[in-house]
Each structure stands twice: as C-alpha cells, then as structure tokens.
C-alpha cells in the first residue's frame, strides 16, 4: 500500500526511494553499528529460552545455595555464572536476557498502541479542524505539560501495580507525542493536490485519511516512534525499580537492578551493575538509530 503511494510522490527525484534511504542511513557508521547491536539484542530476547543456561523464572531451576556468587563462579548446576548470581541464586546473564524480553515487549507494545491512538487522533484533528481540533490539541497540551513520570505514577496509583497497568500508563503518557507530530505533518499534507483529488473523487473520509493522508505522514511518525520506544523502556525500568511494575517472580531489568540495591552496599556490585549496562546499551542503540533516522527522513536537511 505505502509502496504504491510513496514512489508516486517523489518519483521525479529518484527511482527507488528505499534503496536511497538505506544508503543514506548507512552513511553513519555509528548508526549502523547501533542498528546491528539493537538487532542482536532483539534476537537475544526472542530466542532467550534456547540461549540462556537457565530459565530464571522457574524456581525449581534456581539453587538458593548459589546465591550472590561472584561473576565467573561455577555453580552447583555445573555451568559458569559469567555475570554472577542474585540473592535467589538466579544466573544474572539469563535474568538479563529474559528481562530484556519484558522490557522490549512492554516498550515496543506500548509505543505501538500509543502510536495507533495518537496518530488517529492527530489525523482527525488535522482533517476535521475547528472544534474537534482544538479539543484534541487542548488534551495534548494538558498531557505534555505534566512530566511523564508523574502522569504514570498517577495512573498506577489509581489502577494499582502490574504489568498491564504499566502498559496502560505508558500508552496514556505517550499518545500525545504522536498526536502532535501527526497533526503537524497532516496540516501541511492535507493542502496538497493529491488530497484534493481524492476528495473530488468523493472517496469516503476514512479512505482519504488512512490510504492517502497517513502514508505521507509516516516519516516523522517513524522517528518519534523510535525515540518513544527508548523512552518507554526507560520509564518501565524506572517504574519497576520503584516497585510499581512487573511482579517480582518475573523480573524486568529495572526490578533486577532494584534487587541488587541492598547487596550493593556490601560490595556485591554485579547484581545491579550488569542489568543497568544492558538497559543502557539498549536505550543508547535505539536513540542512535532514531537520531540517524531523523537526519535521513527530514526533508529540510536534504539538498
């Protein structure tokens, strides 16, 4: 669908926009490296059960005698704990890879739902204008004037703890960014001839909105979406660290870090240190990819 629309728009400049996009993206070695790192992290998370030496959520596999072992120790089960173990004898490496799974799912899932809601409302605001527009944009302003952590805390205070509530909180906190971005682009695009042409053909409104207007608003949406995934992962980790997120039996990265807190004071640094490094690498790699996407997709920076 989008393939049919995008080449039509800039066909007079290049033959294959996708190939040009790829080569422009690859111009930055840092961004390319970040993308590779991110793909590796994603693959690790997807194939976690086949990679990790231990299922960190299966309490039967954990040996409490192996608790708080230093990195590199060989445990009772016969394999080496390369990154040490936590207080319950959980292999940190396995815990981190499974934790990445939760962090990525929550981050990407909430970003996707927020994107669907935000983009639809943004399109509607730009297309309908008038009263609808001002009501939606007031809501966006209200949402953006409060810091994300506060809005998330408020929602979790009402709904209670739990992973689904964290996702709901993240969606409610983030939709406004998408709505604002899409509205801004759509306001420009809707004055173009192709929209006028579609309207002249008396196509139904939803068709004009989603088949004609939306595909042309995608580039900035993709950039915002990438950055928001990183933000969502960071926010989920923070909420879990505060004890408001995922349950203790299936720790995400934030909760792993929180678990290590009390042992850090006695010098057992690895329980908190390594999950933090994993979190950092994930967030930085997504941000670097997003930065490069913004540069490539921004028409103002093109010659």
């Amino acid at each position, binding site marked *: 669908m989008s393939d049919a629309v995008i080449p039509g728009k800039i066909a007079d400049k290049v033959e294959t926009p996708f190939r040009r996009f790829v080569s422009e993206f690859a111009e930055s070695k840092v961004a390319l490296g970040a993308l590779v790192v991110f793909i590796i992290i994603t693959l690790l998370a997807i194939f976690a059960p086949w990679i990790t030496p231990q299922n960190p959520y299966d309490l039967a596999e954990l040996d409490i005698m192996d608790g708080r072992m230093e990195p590199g120790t060989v445990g009772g089960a016969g394999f080496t704990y390369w990154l040490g173990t936590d207080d319950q004898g959980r292999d940190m490496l396995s815990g981190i890879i499974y934790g990445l799974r939760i962090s990525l799912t929550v981050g990407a899932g909430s970003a996707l739902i927020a994107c669907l809601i935000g983009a639809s409302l943004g399109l509607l605001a730009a297309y309908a204008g008038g009263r609808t527009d001002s009501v939606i944009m007031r809501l966006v302003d209200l949402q953006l004037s409060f810091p994300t952590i506060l809005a998330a805390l408020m929602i979790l205070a009402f709904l209670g703890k739990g992973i689904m509530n964290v996702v709901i909180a993240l969606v409610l906190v983030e939709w406004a960014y998408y709505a604002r971005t899409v509205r801004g682009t759509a306001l420009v695009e809707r004055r173009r001839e192709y929209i006028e042409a579609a309207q002249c053909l008396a196509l139904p409104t939803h068709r004009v909105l989603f088949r004609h207007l939306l595909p042309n608003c995608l580039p900035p949406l993709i950039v915002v979406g990438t950055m928001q995934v990183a933000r969502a992962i*960071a926010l989920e980790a*923070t909420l879990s660290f505060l004890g408001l997120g995922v349950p203790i039996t299936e720790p995400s990265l*934030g909760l792993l870090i929180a678990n290590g807190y009390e042992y*850090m004071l006695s010098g057992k*640094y690895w329980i908190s240190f390594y999950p933090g490094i994993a979190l950092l690498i994930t967030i*930085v790699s997504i941000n670097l990819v997003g930065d490069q996407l913004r540069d490539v997709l921004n028409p103002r920076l093109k010659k």
Partner: protein
Amino acid sequence: MTVYLVRRLLQALLVVLAMSVIVFIGVFAIGDPVEILISPDADQIERERAVQALGLDLPLWQQYAVFLTKALQGDLGRSFVYNEPALKLILQRMPATMELAFGATIFALIIGLPLGLYAGLRPNSRFSRVIMASSILGFSLPTFWVGLMLIMVFAVYLGWLPSTGRGDTGTLLGMQWSFLTWDGLRHMAMPALNLSLFKISLVIRLTRAGVRETMLMDYVKFARAKGLSPARVTFVHVFKNILIPVVTVVGLELGSTIAFSVVTESVFAWPGMGKLIIDSINVLDRPVIVAYLMMIVLMFIAINLIVDLTYSMLDPRVRLESKGT
C-alpha cells in the same frame, strides 16, 4: 494586560477543577472507595460507621461536592499509616524535596554553563566532542541506575560521601533544612548531582546552541572589531545574551525536577515528598496519594501560570495573539 491576566487565571482555575475531578474519579469511582479510604484492619461495625461518616452512601456528585469543600479547607483526609492529616505530612516533607531540586538546578548551571560555553566557542575541538557525546549519554542514562552507581563508587568503594538519608539539619523559618549544616550538605551532594544529570545535558546543549548563534551576530563582530579582549566579548556580549533563555528553561524545568525527584529520593532514601508518595502507593495509603497529587497539580499549574505571565510581560506578542483567538 488585565484582561489577559483574568483570562489566564480563569483558565488555570478550570484546569485545577478538571484535575480535581480526575483525581476524584480515579480514587472514588474506579477503585472501591470503602477499601481505599477505610483502613483494612477495621471491622464490620467500624466500616459502616466510617461509610456514614465519609458520606459514601451519598450520590456521586454530592460526594464530589463534599470532597471539594473539604479540599478547599485544606482537609484531604488522614493517613492510615501515620494517623496524621495527609496535607500536613506532605508539607512537612516539602522542604527536603525543594532543597534537593534547587541543589540540582545549581549543579546544572555551574557544570552545564562552562561546558556548554566551551563547546560553543570551540565546536571542533576534541574536548567539545567529548562534552557533546556525554550530553547524549546524560539524556539516555536511566537516572536510578546512575544513582546506584554513584553510591557504589563514592559511598561503598571510596567512602567519601554518606550513601543515604538527609544527615543533620538546621532550622530556618520553622522548617528543617540540610543545606545549613556541613553533614547535611555532604548527604545532599550525591542526590542533587543525580537529579541534575538530565538538566546538565540540557544546559550544555542550550548554551552551546546559543553561543554558536550569538557569535555570528553583528554586535559581537562589532565588539571584536573595536578591539575588545576575547574574554570581554565572551563574558559580557555573548554570555549575558544567552543567559536569559537558559535561565528561563531551567526555571521551567523546576516543576519536572520536583516530579523526577521521586526516583532520586527512592534511591538515596531522601525523606522528601517523592519518597513519601512511593511508600504510600506501596502500602496503599490513599489519602496521602490524593493529597500529593492535588498538591503537585497545583504546583504545576502555578509554575505554568507564572511562566506564561512573565512571558506575556516580556513579549507583547503573546498576549496579543491570545486576544485574537
């Protein structure tokens, strides 16, 4: 100007009302109010008496009216845990959070401004690149993890600073402040630095962009042509002009710094409002949650109002524009 002021005040009032409805619905309608407002230890007779006393048998709009009247009188319920008025608890913790937020702001300015100035004056030097790369890191690093690492390095391994708590406090205006004692300052250093990380990055970026823009201005070229020393051009002509936007943004950020202190306070066991709200959410001490949310909403609306009014005084375009709509 008066018209604008009245309009803006009315708007703020409307938002406060809207937020009070949201908080009310959140606590009184989504959850079971009996469970939320009455201590779980209460027996059946106590429960019924409390339902009567709290007016939970009334229709919802009447309950809201009662909630609002009580809130206006400063009564936001009693904490189950401390058995004290929730508002009083919050106000007691406020100085701790405030001094942390101000400490973070000062850190952001004394670290961010010189670094940003350097990066702006020598954009191509190696040190500038290091500064800019670290500022990206400052945006990406999860605050709570950095806090833990600070404790690990400075408290556990080096033993230079105390890891948690507020230390000795001095009394000023009837409130307890840590910045009045040396021990308190030592306790404050790490949390304040932790809270300021994001803002240091922000100040560096703003200052750098401002310097690069200002260096191209005619008045800077003219000052140079007059033969003024580079130091005088930098600090009088450039620095003064970039200070206004930087200070404005940092002031605007004060609200979000107070909100984000929730995380820092939890890491460093700093007994402020943020630590209180997290503890209250964990033990379901709902009156305190309601009081905190209402307080912070009020604070935010006040900050936004002050910023808008200051802007409209400084820049006539703002108030003329809103008159047109």
